[in-house]
């Protein structure tokens, strides 16, 4: 057994919650730069420059890149040989989240109940998914997921006969319908397979595919398909902020898992241009 310290979990989660919200990753800056380079239209180029400038202002002043600092999603990869020195893992995560949102001056956007809708004032609870791994590692991916893009996400239980063409059609339809709403350039996490709830989680994991490549159970190299779908989507002329252009979508990432003989579940999880993810090791 390997011991991880409760207080270390709180501290690292807190710091990373603040960092992902206020500091653009190098990856995001590269995506802006690539978009600026590719756009030929003046308006689209200009918008991308402003989005990039925005993220630099945020990191300089340590204020959030976007005011919607989101629902905090945690993907916890918990080794079977890990124990805590004290307390309960979920409590440590929640404490880190609430301290981060408070001390980082992040917006508290969670309501107690979907009908009653009273703000919990600490951005709790986060949405936590746990995966047990056969080792003594503890890895937590945190994501700040804004509602504008989450609301435009979609899931469909397709017939197996729909095949890859049906999947493409569904993805394109989802992105077209979302249009300007999820703050394009967007990134897509596409889950294919598993079952109803499994495919939604797969789509969420797909958004951080590059951060969890060592944690995946299945072979998941779909780069050619991802690039084809990306090109198709960027031909829709959605563009930055939905005003037209070549850069409506930054990235497409796909994860697949086995499924039932009668099912073809597909889920598309949309992320806005503000990609806010981090991997934390303990």
């Amino acid at each position, binding site marked *: 057994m390997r011991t991880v310290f409760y207080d270390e979990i709180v501290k690292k989660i807190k710091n990373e919650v603040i960092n992902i919200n206020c500091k653009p990753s190098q990856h995001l800056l590269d995506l802006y730069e690539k978009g600026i380079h590719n756009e030929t*239209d003046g308006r689209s180029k200009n*918008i991308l420059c*402003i*989005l990039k*400038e*925005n*993220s630099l*202002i*945020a990191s300089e*002043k*340590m*204020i*959030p*890149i*976007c*005011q*919607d*600092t989101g629902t905090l999603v945690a993907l916890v990869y918990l080794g079977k040989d890990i124990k805590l020195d004290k307390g309960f893992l979920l409590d440590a995560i929640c404490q880190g989240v609430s301290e981060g949102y408070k001390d980082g*001056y*992040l*917006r*508290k*956007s969670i309501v107690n109940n979907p009908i009653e*809708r009273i*703000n919990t*004032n600490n951005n709790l609870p986060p949405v936590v998914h746990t995966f047990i791994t056969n080792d003594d590692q503890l890895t937590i991916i945190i994501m700040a997921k*804004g*509602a*504008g893009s989450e*609301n435009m996400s979609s899931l469909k239980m397709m017939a197996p006969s729909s095949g890859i063409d049906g999947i493409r059609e569904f993805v394109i339809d989802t992105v077209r319908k979302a*249009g*300007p*709403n*999820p*703050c394009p350039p967007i990134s897509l996490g596409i889950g294919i397979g598993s079952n109803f709830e499994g495919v939604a989680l797969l789509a969420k994991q797909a958004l951080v595919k590059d951060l969890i490549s060592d944690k995946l159970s299945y072979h998941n190299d779909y780069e050619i398909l991802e690039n084809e779908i990306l090109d198709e989507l960027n031909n829709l*002329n959605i*563009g930055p*902020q*939905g*005003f*037209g*252009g070549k850069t409506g979508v930054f990235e497409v990432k796909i994860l697949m898992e086995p499924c039932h003989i009668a099912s073809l579940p597909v889920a598309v999880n949309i992320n*806005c*241009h*503000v990609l806010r993810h981090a991997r934390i090791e303990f």
Partner: protein
Amino acid sequence: MKIQAPISKSMLNEIKSGDFLYISGTIYTARDAAHKKLAELINLNKELPFDLKGAIIYYSGPSPASPGNIVGSIGPTTSYRMDKYTPDLLKQGLSVVIGKGKRSKEVIDSLVEYKAIYCAAYGGAGAYLASKIKSIIPVAFEELGPEAIYKLEVEDFPVIVVNDLWGNDLYESRGKI
């Protein structure tokens, strides 16, 4: 084009879908919960927390100000969630609404009918937009936290006109205007 708020309806005749506007003066934030409350007040014929005539409403719920800053991040939220309430507010004389994303046909028609425009601010650029805010004071529903109504004084606040007085829609025309 630079414009000064509040904005007279005749001024709106000069503005077309696709124009970049730089707004200075007073604008008010209101999002989901505040809209629900405003609609209730209008229904009951009660006095509103601010005069809607010629006013500008910005769909935004800022993040809290950290020490040394006037405001946190303050970008737009997605507008369609306010569609249900917008025609009633336009009827009261609202001139400009600012948010992001598509509006319903009903809202676009009401904009034409009541002579008002819908503009988009840059979504996900709340830190940049914060630099255009000179002051912020809560004016109603403070208990709603980020969803309260705030009065903002802005300078050269940048927006793009989406729907104008003639029913044009930049999200439909995109590069083609």
